């Protein structure tokens, strides 16, 4: 919601201190979020994405704002066909922006089988490894030299957006790209309270304070 209302630059500024959480435009964006919440069945910030998607499948809900992995759920688990059974659209205001997250492995210092671990990491990062893993999971490769033919339907559109030089890339909050653990957990708290109290100004102030405290 903040990304759509503020645009990619100001959105990124939220995480770097350049955009003021207490500013009028942020408050306005949160007000819009309030209206959206009012039209949703979300009663808690802990609501899970699968039941939400199920309601879309049932026809009880019109849409759900979600990431690539939903394609894996709809296409594989629910055997639905892209374009005929379901379709995707950029959430309002976010056309031409790619909100990304990446999955990664850590290689601890002093790992016992370092050579084997390195082999595994090399495999994961290789074209072959990427092309084996991603289509199964419902994600796209970070590499530009992957085999595009392996990414069909929704993944083809996602890969096209990702590789389009005009696309602006921003980081996902939920997955820890833009906020450290401390800031992230404070935002969780503030969001939980916001969903109950629906007070944009208090929400903005709480996060501004958390940002200052956890910088």
């Amino acid at each position, binding site marked *: 919601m903040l990304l759509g209302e503020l645009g990619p630059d100001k959105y990124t500024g939220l995480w770097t201190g350049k955009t003021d959480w207490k500013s009028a435009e942020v408050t306005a964006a949160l007000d819009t979020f309030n209206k959206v919440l009012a039209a949703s069945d979300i*009663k*808690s*910030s*802990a609501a899970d994405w699968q*039941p939400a998607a*199920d*309601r879309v499948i*049932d026809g*009880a809900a019109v849409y759900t704002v979600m990431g690539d992995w939903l394609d894996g759920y709809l296409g594989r688990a629910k055997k639905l066909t892209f374009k005929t059974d379901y379709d995707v659209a950029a959430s309002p205001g976010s056309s031409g922006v790619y909100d990304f997250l990446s999955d990664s492995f850590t290689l601890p210092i002093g790992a016992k089988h370092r050579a084997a671990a390195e082999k595994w990491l090399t495999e994961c990062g290789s074209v072959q490894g990427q092309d084996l893993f991603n289509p199964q999971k419902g994600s796209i490769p970070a590499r530009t030299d992957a085999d595009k033919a392996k990414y069909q339907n929704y993944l083809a559109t996602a890969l096209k957006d990702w590789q389009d030089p005009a696309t602006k890339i921003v980081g996902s909050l939920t997955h820890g790209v833009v906020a450290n*653990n*401390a800031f*992230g*957990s*404070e935002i*969780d*708290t503030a969001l*939980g*309270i916001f*969903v*109950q109290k629906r007070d944009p100004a208090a929400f903005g102030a*709480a996060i501004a304070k958390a940002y200052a405290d*956890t910088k």
Partner: protein
Amino acid sequence: MMRRIRAWGPGLVLILPSLIALAVFVYGFLGWNIRVSLSSWRGLAPAHDFVGLRNYIALFSDQRFTEFDVPNIAIFTLVFVAGSLAIGFVMALLLDRGVTGENAFRSVYLFPMAISFIATAIIWRWLMDNGSGESETGINKLLAGAGLGALHSDWFKSGSRWAIAAIALPAGWSLSGYVMSLFLAGMRGVPEELREAARVDGASEPRVFWHVVRPMLLPVMMSAVVILTHISLKTFDLFYAMDQKNIKIDTPALYMWFTTFDGGFYARGAAIATLLLLGVATVIVPYIWYSVRVERRR
């Protein structure tokens, strides 16, 4: 001197391992936790500074702690303890009347306690699902099927202040059988001759219960209240598995865990842990004091 050592030396050696374990793993860590709560430790690297009661003061103006966690745990404890006591007591009363297959009943009611809170939560999360229409399941569907659709509830997802009271349902389901067996043991501990004496004295059955049996159940009830209350204050897994980040069922124990291990606010988590300990202590210390006094009087 040698004689004295010989007198209680072997006993000391016997309890020494557990004494050491207690000293280190209970009191040592307790002290360490309090020490951490007085520091500004945040993030993975420990900080050994001393900031006084700053973390505690901050908690008292922390909206999540004061407006959600504390009222939530108070409501939960109230409903859970009162409910389990009432249900356990009534079940014990019924079983005490001498039901055929009493042992089977007793086991059936005790079984839920053998199930971990995580598993209990997963069952009840489904039972208390708040879906409606096509996606209605669990208790709501059962109610609708029985023509009681008007009782449809959002349970712990409801917007009410009392949403957390719904969690007392699985918690009570899990522990009221235990309370029942406590009360049943208490009732069985009342000598039959006392009831007979009261009957001969002219007391009707309800009055026999009220004047003779009930007062003798007071110690059992005290133990039950203390056991249930401290379980209630400490419960973590049940809420966690039920609806992790739903602030409506957030409690100090959950906040402590999330803020410490998700956010790295070690000092704040330690402060919450210390307050929790104080909460449990206000229940348990008077109880221990009371039992020691009773024991001494004997």
